[in-house]
């Protein structure tokens, strides 16, 4: 189908990247981009395609991160089981809150998801007996059937495979009957309902998928960095994820990756502004949104060949 060229291109890019990168520091930045991008792809399904705002997405990221940290170190779960447990937990929570929350629209939905994120962040901070509280806690190494990735390069391949799979699954979803129903929720809810789309059910489903991806991303982060703090579930992190989706381009999977890349790289690249880096960062974001209101990837895709606008 239409998305196979760019999925193949993306796979080739991911495969070639580690050989083009000169040092471990850059590879570390790339790994962080990849981890963020997985969560942003999920968030973009909710926000960009289905048109539902979520300002508490870092809460699900936090569930994954702490599931991997707590279940492995305190309960002796194998890392892969903890990772799956986190995904299941995040999905179950998303499912439970989806119906009441996603009935709300616009600002009210934003407030409700914000509240959800804050609750999760506070629970993580307060349950110090399990989570180490505000100081955070160390995380055991990831190991799968005896293989334990170590060093930026090995981790790179783990993350790259997960990222590619997330992009592939999301691309499939968007281009399926369910994806059309989701996009219709965004474009015209009356139209969607008039042809039989049970809107509440579809909102809940996409919310669960996004939560599961965020949890996966959180688990990878926890194992990769080796240490988690409640910061991972904070409001600031939620905003960061939303900004990545918006700047990269809503309703664009490529945009999710581009947005994650830009917002992960920029703060580091601007470090030489010493003290003024956040100001420069903010100014750049404003500039991008003014010049490219649709976000990076959709705007560029539109400029260089309309046919690829859907990538």
């Amino acid at each position, binding site marked *: 189908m239409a998305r196979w060229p760019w999925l193949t291109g993306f796979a080739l890019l991911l495969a070639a990247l580690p050989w083009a990168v000169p040092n471990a520091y850059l590879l570390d930045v790339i790994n962080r981009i990849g981890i963020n991008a997985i969560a942003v792809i999920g968030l973009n399904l909710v926000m960009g395609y289905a048109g539902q705002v979520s300002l508490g997405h870092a809460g699900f990221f936090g569930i994954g991160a702490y599931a991997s940290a707590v279940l492995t170190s305190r309960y002796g779960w194998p890392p892969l089981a903890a990772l799956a447990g986190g995904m299941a937990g995040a999905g179950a929570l998303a499912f439970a809150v989806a119906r009441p929350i996603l009935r709300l629209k616009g600002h009210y939905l934003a407030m409700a998801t914000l509240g959800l994120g804050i609750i999760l962040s506070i629970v993580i901070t307060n349950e110090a007996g399990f989570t180490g509280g505000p100081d955070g806690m160390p995380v055991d190494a990831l190991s799968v059937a005896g293989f334990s990735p170590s060093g930026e390069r090995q981790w790179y391949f783990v993350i790259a495979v997960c990222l590619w799979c997330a992009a592939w699954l999301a691309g499939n*979803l968007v281009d399926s009957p369910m*994806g059309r129903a989701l996009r219709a929720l965004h*474009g015209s809810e009356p*139209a969607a309902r*008039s*042809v*039989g*789309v049970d809107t509440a059910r579809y909102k809940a489903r996409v919310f669960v998928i996004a939560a599961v991806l965020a949890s996966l991303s959180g688990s990878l982060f926890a194992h990769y960095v080796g240490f988690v703090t409640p910061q991972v579930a904070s409001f600031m992190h939620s905003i960061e994820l939303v900004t990545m989706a918006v700047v990269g381009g809503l309703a664009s999977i490529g945009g999710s990756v581009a947005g994650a890349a830009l917002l992960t790289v920029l703060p580091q690249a601007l470090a030489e502004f010493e003290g003024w880096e956040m100001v420069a960062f903010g100014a750049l974001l404003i500039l991008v949104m003014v010049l490219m209101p649709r976000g990076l990837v959709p705007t560029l895709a539109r400029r260089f060949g309309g046919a690829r606008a859907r990538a």
Partner: protein
Amino acid sequence: MLALEGVGMRFGGVQALAGVDWRVDAGRVHAVIGPNGAGKTTLFNVITGVYRPTQGCVLLDGQDVSGLPPDRLAARGLARTFQNLQVVGAMSAEENVMLGAHLCLSQGTLASLLHLPGLRRADRECRAEALEWLRFTGIAEYAGRLAEAMPYGALKRLEIARAMAARPRVLFLDEPAAGLNQSEKLAMRELILAIADKGITVVLVEHDMKLVMGVSEHILVLDYGRKLAEGAAAEVRANPEVIAAYLGEAEAH
């Protein structure tokens, strides 16, 4: 197949509909007419589940369906178009029509994520069928175009194509000719008759009397939310009360 019994709809202090009884028989073209604000669109919205009637009930095949949400009514064979266009601008014409076939397709989350072969095959068939409906409504040339880039007249037809893809038993058209030019109106008339020829019951709200009289076998006239008259086109046209409501008292006498 569809019957309204004493249907009333009140919004705060406004009685938009009051005590409307009406029967829609299978396989005919029905029209609802009346001056602006007579309650025509409200009647549509009550029947298609957008509103729950505050009095009376809507019966479909003898079963009370009043207050069922639109998606459940769609599953029972009702489809509609909207007076103010409701299309998904960011999807192509083809995808908008494929959306219409939503209920005919499997919607498993896992199948959607993995694009399992069964889903792919069903989706291909759905795409072919969507093209058929685009052809049927005369807008096949726009198949790959984003709906937001389509002209108004074509969007009116796109809504009909989407509704047809849902394989309805009853199709509700809310002002299908509004905003169309003369030749487009003639083409719309042909399209409505072609839909009726397929055995689908059509109910339309329309201001253009020429179109209404040209296609409908049965007409319901509303005025201030009440039923003013109903019957065959010729009867209704000759009804002095109807003439009065439309043209003013002076002309009627």
